[in-house]
């Protein structure tokens, strides 16, 4: 849903909701706002639509939107100014390091649970992991992030 006109910037983001997903709708909304912030689509100071506006646009329960905003506020992604609305928090630019690590950790754990459920043994899992690491990271690991300095 394209939705809003920021106070300072005119922009829109699109929410894609899957009501039948096991992920609660409020979490889907919060996640998509966070991704928009992390990706730089939403900038600090941008105004989110009102609870009523977004609920009507998405045809969902206003309580669900309010809960998503509360969650985002709790995590410091947005700040609500009484009577004015909800804004992307100052100083928020991308997902904080811990948050990113937490997500990756979750993904790894899910993969490990699947491996266990499929009866794949520990050494095999380690080999698969090492293989994937080699395939995906080998190039970037060999390339130093900074150009080599001349005195080295």
């Amino acid at each position: 849903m394209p939705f809003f006109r920021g106070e300072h910037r005119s922009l829109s983001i699109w929410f894609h909701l899957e009501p039948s997903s096991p992920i609660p709708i409020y979490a889907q909304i919060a996640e998509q706002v966070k991704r928009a912030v992390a990706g730089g689509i939403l900038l600090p100071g941008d105004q989110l639509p009102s609870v009523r506006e977004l609920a009507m646009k998405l045809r969902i329960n206003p309580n669900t939107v309010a809960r998503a905003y509360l969650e985002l506020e709790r995590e410091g992604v947005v700040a609500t100014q009484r009577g004015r609305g909800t804004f992307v928090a100052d100083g928020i630019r991308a997902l904080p390091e811990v948050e990113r690590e937490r997500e990756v950790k979750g993904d790894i754990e899910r993969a490990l649970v699947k491996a266990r459920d499929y009866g794949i043994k520990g050494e095999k899992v380690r080999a698969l992991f090492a293989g994937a690491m080699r395939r995906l990271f080998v190039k970037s690991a060999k390339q130093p992030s900074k150009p080599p300095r001349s005195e080295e």
Partner: protein
Amino acid sequence: MMAQVRVNRDINSRAGAHPDRVFQGHSPAQDIAIETRNLGRMFGDVQAVVDLNLSVPAGSIFGLIGPNGAGKTTTIKMLLGLIQPTAGGASVLGRDILTDSLWIRSRVGYVMETQAMYGYLTVGETLSFCRRLYPRWNDELVRGYCKSFGLPLERKVGKLSKGMKTQLALILALGPDPDLLILDEPTSGLDPVRRHEFLTTVIGEIAGTGKTVFLSSHQLSEVERVCDHIGIINRGTLILSGSLDQIKAQEKKVRIITQGALPEEIMRMPQVRKVEPEGAGYLISISGAVDAVIDRLRALPHSFLETIDMNLEEIFMDYVGAPDSCKTPREGE
């Protein structure tokens, strides 16, 4: 040794034979918009509603779902004092349905499944008729909606299309500024555009007001989208109710291929609702503390194990649809 899979506990096979499953959040009495206590209604010797214990949190959008003839409309009519219960009681907005039904009706907006309106009155006449019945009537709001829906005030109600009749019914329900909106199959028979518009209107009206919506519907995808609480009713009995997110977290299936038969102790776990043979393995329906069962299953020697999430339609069909399909054939109980 077990050759056959036994149904551990079939929650929906006999109406009234099992306890209601209620997932409850916090619930002080004043936070409850609707509460029924062992509510029941007989029609002759037919039990339309049996021992219904329902709790609708104030400010929620509650979806009552169930097959045709499950007792949804009978329940709604009892809440509004339009028919009397034959057992139990209920309170709506804190007032008793037996003694305070007039007060309740003044605070509740009601859209019926089939709109009972006077076909010989025009839209305008219908509005001025209803306005006089309600002290809290919001004329500005009503006019605004008539305009935005494009309802012709001079047309006879009998000549309105189905969509327009539903819109008029919704306007009449919203006019008295109700604290509770009861919608009985409000969008059945409406095209997707009108259905969309109907829901958007309801959502816009209740947002930030603390108003409660209690709706019955067959549109499960719609319920899943809009409702934060649901109740599943079948054959007059409440089978499952609570917060939708919580229900989804607590209703899972596990597909497992074990080495050897499934141990009896798994089947005896209270969360295990039913066990069905599936190919070389089993499909296990779990309700409640899912992780405890899954941990036990993981500890078994197995070659395959997968947890399956269920959407509302799957949960609904699992409890209500084809109630005997899960039973092992020819196993007398």
